[in-house]
């Protein structure tokens, strides 16, 4: 297979062409409509009966819906900005944004490189939450989280010292490459110490004819199954290619065993363990431990005598150019951002952008992200009425959305949300703590015994939805809404002015949190309930705000983003 070398692009111009070709109407309409609005968060509360505050403009609703797909979280001001300047301008600005702080630098800046931390996880959760909840590059945060959901590494699955730094270096690879080229992402991950540890090819040794030992197959297998091509040959629309009615496996066990030879010889770039520095250096290859015999897997041929570095290049180029990669990667990104069950046509359009950004470049993530978020299927507001389109909001995004909407900060960078894995008292997942490379949930998960299953659909986030996790989420949410988390406190001041009028309060929350997807009927029920809380004291207003937040964020019409 020829190995077309990708090029690294300057960010801006590519995606404009793509956007114009895919969804000109909705984008134009949104930008125009947005010009007349932007005041929904104002202080017009105080009147009663729902007649006080103006309803949000269509542009604001559209902007909120877009941001709920594109951003890790957002505030009313972000809605106003998108409604005013349009999606394209927002995407361009986000793509151009330099990362305010990298994961690694958070740890160093906040003192976690101290030798006392060599065998602890100190700083890890704070680092993750600081980015997700605190960093202004909200598109990168959202895409980074989606990439982490696919290219999974969990801190409890790695060994060695300075684990938060190992994770920081890895997350920086994902976040740095989120707007770059997928091929570079493949390279960065494949040489990262974190992945070397997590999928056990750091220390992998070529076959030993004396002992009979064979190379570790772990990374070779999951690189194909989970990160690049998947198990079956795909059409460009993500559907399986059938032969005689049966799907065609992309690889056999022999391909795994052969592919494993590529990933031999890998080790740390330095033996110095007194500081974390070696954990962000790409792994190096010990030639004596690397298999140099001729290797063939899939249709990828690595001649005898090839160096380990060149073998990696041949292997990754070959995988990158496999026809499965565009639909395989594109569909998962759509699932993470927009809808669990995209139409084949939607997948096909995004996959086309992956395969060629319009300038003959394959794997341009900006083009792919742009295609996902500006596609007619994503932007079609009539989907809000669908009984099938959309996705269950991933729990961590709900948490972050609350924090972003109400300007949660952490003055001393403690970000004290900690490990949120518990299904008894937290949200049943915690970023960077997945229990295995199969993540918290799988893109193909089907909740059995549901209409989702009988309709032939998938619902990935339902894999971590069950009786305890559902109730624990509401409980934890309530605690956060009322108490914050230590020094990380919300600012509800914009709501206080609205709270005397329950309708205005609910309208605001519905717009900012739920893109107005909580139905009028449900809002009416909420209003009745909230009106039972007297609004004639500051405490009463506070209670109304907090109760309203819990009700909206526990409502199925919020939890299912359409």
């Amino acid at each position, binding site marked *: 297979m020829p190995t077309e070398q990708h090029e690294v692009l300057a960010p801006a111009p590519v995606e404009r062409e793509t956007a114009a070709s895919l969804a000109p109407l909705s984008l134009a309409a949104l930008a125009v409509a947005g010009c007349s609005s932007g005041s929904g968060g104002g202080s017009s509360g105080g009147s009663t009966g729902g007649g006080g505050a103006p309803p949000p403009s269509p542009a604001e609703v559209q902007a909120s819906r877009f941001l709920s797909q594109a951003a890790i979280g957002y505030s009313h001001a972000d809605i106003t900005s998108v409604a005013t300047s349009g999606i394209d301008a927002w995407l361009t600005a986000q793509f151009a944004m330099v990362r305010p702080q990298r994961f690694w630098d958070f740890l160093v800046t906040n003192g976690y490189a101290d030798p006392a931390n060599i065998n602890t996880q100190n700083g890890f959760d704070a680092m993750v939450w600081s980015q997700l909840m605190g960093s202004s590059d909200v598109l990168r945060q959202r895409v980074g989280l989606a990439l982490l959901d696919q290219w999974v590494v969990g801190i409890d699955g790695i060994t060695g010292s300075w684990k938060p730094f190992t994770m920081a270096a890895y997350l920086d690879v994902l976040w740095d490459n989120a707007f770059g080229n997928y091929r570079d992402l493949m390279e960065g991950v494949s040489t990262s110490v974190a992945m070397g540890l997590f999928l056990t090819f750091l220390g992998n040794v070529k076959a030993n004819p004396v*002992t*009979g030992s064979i190379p570790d197959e772990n990374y070779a297998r999951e690189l194909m199954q989970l990160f690049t091509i998947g198990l079956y040959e795909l059409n460009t629309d993500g559907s399986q290619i059938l032969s005689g009615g049966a799907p065609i496996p992309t690889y056999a066990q022999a391909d795994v065993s052969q592919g494993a030879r590529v990933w031999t010889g890998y080790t740390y770039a330095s033996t110095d363990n007194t500081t974390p520095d070696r954990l962000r250096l790409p792994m190096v290859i010990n030639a004596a431990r690397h298999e140099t015999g001729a290797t063939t897997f899939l249709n990828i041929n690595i001649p005898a005598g090839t160096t380990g570095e060149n073998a990696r290049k041949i292997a990754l180029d070959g995988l990158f150019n496999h026809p499965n990669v565009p639909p395989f990667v594109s569909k998962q990104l759509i699932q993470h951002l927009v809808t669990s069950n995209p139409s084949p046509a939607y997948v096909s359009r995004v996959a086309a952008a992956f395969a060629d950004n319009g300038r003959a470049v394959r794997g341009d993530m900006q083009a792919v992200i742009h295609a996902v978020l500006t596609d007619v299927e994503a932007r079609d507001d009539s989907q809000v009425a669908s009984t099938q389109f959309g996705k269950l909001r991933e729990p961590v995004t709900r948490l972050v959305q609350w924090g972003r909407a109400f300007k949660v900060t952490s003055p001393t960078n403690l970000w004290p949300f900690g490990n949120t894995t518990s299904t008894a008292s937290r949200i049943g997942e915690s970023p960077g703590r997945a229990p295995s490379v199969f993540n918290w949930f799988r893109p193909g998960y089907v909740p059995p*015994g549901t209409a*989702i299953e009988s*309709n032939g659909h998938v619902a990935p986030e339902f894999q971590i939805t069950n009786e*305890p996790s559902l109730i624990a989420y509401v409980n934890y949410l309530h605690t956060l809404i009322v108490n914050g988390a230590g020094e990380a406190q919300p600012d509800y001041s914009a709501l206080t002015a609205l709270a005397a009028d329950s309708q205005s309060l609910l309208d605001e929350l519905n717009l900012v949190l739920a893109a107005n997807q909580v139905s009028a009927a449900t809002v009416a029920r909420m209003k009745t*309930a909230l009106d039972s809380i007297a609004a004639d004291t500051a405490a009463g207003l506070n*209670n109304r705000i907090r109760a309203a937040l819990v009700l909206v964020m526990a409502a199925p019409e919020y939890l299912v983003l359409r």
Partner: protein
Amino acid sequence: MKTRRTTTITRRALLRQASALSIAGAATPFIMNLAAMGEAAAATASDYKALVCVFLYGGNDYANTLVPYDNNQYAIYQAQRPGLTYAQSALAATKLTPSVPLPGGAQYALAPELAPLLPLFNAGAMGVLLNVGTLVEPTTKAQYQAGSVLLPPKLLSHNDQQSYWQASSPEGAASGWGGRIADLLQSGNGTATLTCINVSGNAVFLTGRSAVQYSVTPAGPIALSTRTSLQGSTAAAALLQSLITGGGAHEFEAALGAVGTRALNLYDQVSAALAQAPATSTVFPAAADPLSTLGAQLQFVAKMISVGSQLGAKRQVFFVSTSRYDTHDGLVTLHPTLLTNLANALRAFYDTTVELGVASQVTTFTGSDFGRALTANNDGTDHGWGSMHFVLGGAVNGGRYHGINPTLANGGPDDIGQGRLIPTLSVDQYAATLASWFGVPASELATVVPNIDNYAGSALGTNIGFV
């Protein structure tokens, strides 16, 4: 120790009646007939029974769990994974002395970390199943190589083989065999939704065609903290519950509503019953694997079993799990810890069932994605297929092996290379045997494990007889 299957006989009579009925009333759903029969059957059953699936996520390494011990097998084991083996001398204390010896003088020892289970084996309360794995039909190596038999799809893939093991179908399966067993028996329980209980999240194993899993934590169900008052408002609290249980028109909202409804509706009943649980003195050792809650999960299962009568339960299927068994490396460092953790939890659980007087009514069995290769990859082993498993309980025909001992080799007659075993005993046979003990009549086994008829007339038949 065997329970006489009076229940089954009654059910067969009912089955005939129901068949006649369903011919007369063609619109009656099949499952409803089964449910009606199950209710009648369980109503006549004076006993309580529980199945407990202990799933080892990641694919357990069979050779360092049930370790080859006789000189011939040990030499192969040693040759295939030098540096990863237990010393033969270190295995003497856990050598198994089965009531029925294996052919050819083959012997095994439990890994030394599994020593807490040896007394159970010796007392006949634990059996060892040889070379169990996912199959569609009996499969020889020649058939495998010739492609002349149907094989489970996506062999050696974690998520898919976990699913195939639990459901006879890869990822995306609609139901699992634990749930399909429950389909037949759940209506005999006072509360049908307390038939399939998962103490470790979600697993397709526990969903049937009509049965659904009920998930709890090792500490029990979770109370909604704002149940009676949300920020001082009873109206808001009531609405919150209505939202949680209400679902919606969207298929995802409906699914959320179903989960929320179970969570809120069952909380009072389950927590009230648990408050009546008798105190037990068996100590569950602290987790040897700090990331595992297996002991706590099993302790909770025992507690649920102990209040089965308060809940009106006759038949319950439990699912617990522990992970980290994907030992591509760390086989000699991590795996022993996992086994210690497993053995401590299984032993304490069995002892608790003895203490509760229900040991012969509870059958516990292990499952895992797949076995692993016999051949080392330097410091670990890679994905395999067939594996060794344990069944425990007072009803178990223990103290012996069940199944066919495979030839341990790299490229031998029973492996596809590197000692990745072609199963000689299918998960379907394993499941059918457990289901039969549980009260599923032979005529209904195919609804539990659709491919079971493929094993009629095979060397081991459709009931292995281990319980």
